[in-house]
């Protein structure tokens, strides 16, 4: 495996980079179509929501600690706290809950 390992890396890095690069370089001008613009505006919300749930529930060592972190994050985010605070609070919640129940 080791002799062609760097070729593997080259292939995967190349493909991944091109996926990222091509749209950035091809669609330079502002899109005027309302539907496409709206679509692109909604994209991150759907993508991030889909990635977060239900995956977040399986990310920690325990489902209940994950659920706790999830709820804490939603409450703090809803109050408009910064990324760092929401993230840190979720981590601390998970840590504390696992300290108690594990």
């Amino acid at each position, binding site marked *: 495996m080791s002799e062609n390992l760097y*070729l593997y890396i080259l292939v995967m890095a190349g493909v*991944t980079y091109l996926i990222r690069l091509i749209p950035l370089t091809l669609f330079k001008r502002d899109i005027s179509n309302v539907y496409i613009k709206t679509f692109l505006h909604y994209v991150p919300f759907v993508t991030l929501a889909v990635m977060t*749930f239900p995956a977040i529930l399986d990310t920690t060592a325990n489902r209940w600690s994950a659920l706790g972190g999830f709820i804490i994050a939603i409450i703090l985010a809803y109050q408009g*706290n910064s*990324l760092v605070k929401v993230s840190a609070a*979720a*981590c601390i919640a998970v840590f504390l809950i696992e300290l108690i129940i594990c």
Partner: protein
Amino acid sequence: MFKIKFRGLRIMNTNRMQWKNGLCDGIPIALGYFAVSFTFGILAKKAGLTPFQAVVISLTNMTPAGQFAALGLMGASATYLEMATTQLVLNLRYCLMSCALSQKLDAKAPFIHRFLLAHGITDEIFGVAVCKSGKLNPFYNYGLMSIAIPGWTLGTFFGVISGEVLPAKIISALSIALYGMFIAVIIPPAKGNKILTGIILLSMLVSLLFAKLEVFHYISPGFKIILLTILIAGIASFLFPIREEQEDYPAEGKSISPSLREGSLL
């Protein structure tokens, strides 16, 4: 001439500030990355990779799902075509993100920025950058990348060399950091916005269905994200197009997470 010099200086200062803002907003990304790539490092070691090889993979790919899948493929001595196809399917969502990010950039900005920014299009960096109001300054993204990429790479390195040093409880707690950040990105703009709230709830619900129903288990996680994004964002944009001409979306004037606004960091 004096004026021009002054203007140049001011742009430089703005870029510096943007870079710093990016660096700060990138801290949770880096923490989350560290935890995730730490796990990647541990698995890479099990797959027989040296620390250098694992770090090179992380540095050149910056893609969680793709890298984890790659370990399996390497172990199975898959063909290069299989490797390319897997990466394409798992990472095609970056294509959508790249399209959206392209719209946020100033069309007149130097072209070279696009080549540099491209490497930093990950779920997290994109999610944070795209929700900034107005045009995007590439230096903000460079700030995010300057801390997120080391976080990802160092996490991999330490995962390979010291899999068992960090207590499991700490790894477990850190691994939720990324999701906490996602939530901090999508919730504030949805506050008081029924359409966005509906989109987020529907996305999570359908995502849950995909995870629970066995019919959908053939679909890879990366492809599931693309499919749902195109479906839900597509239908929503058809039903609720945003017609205002101004830069602002209904959500934006109000409250993007405060850290995303210029100036206020923490």
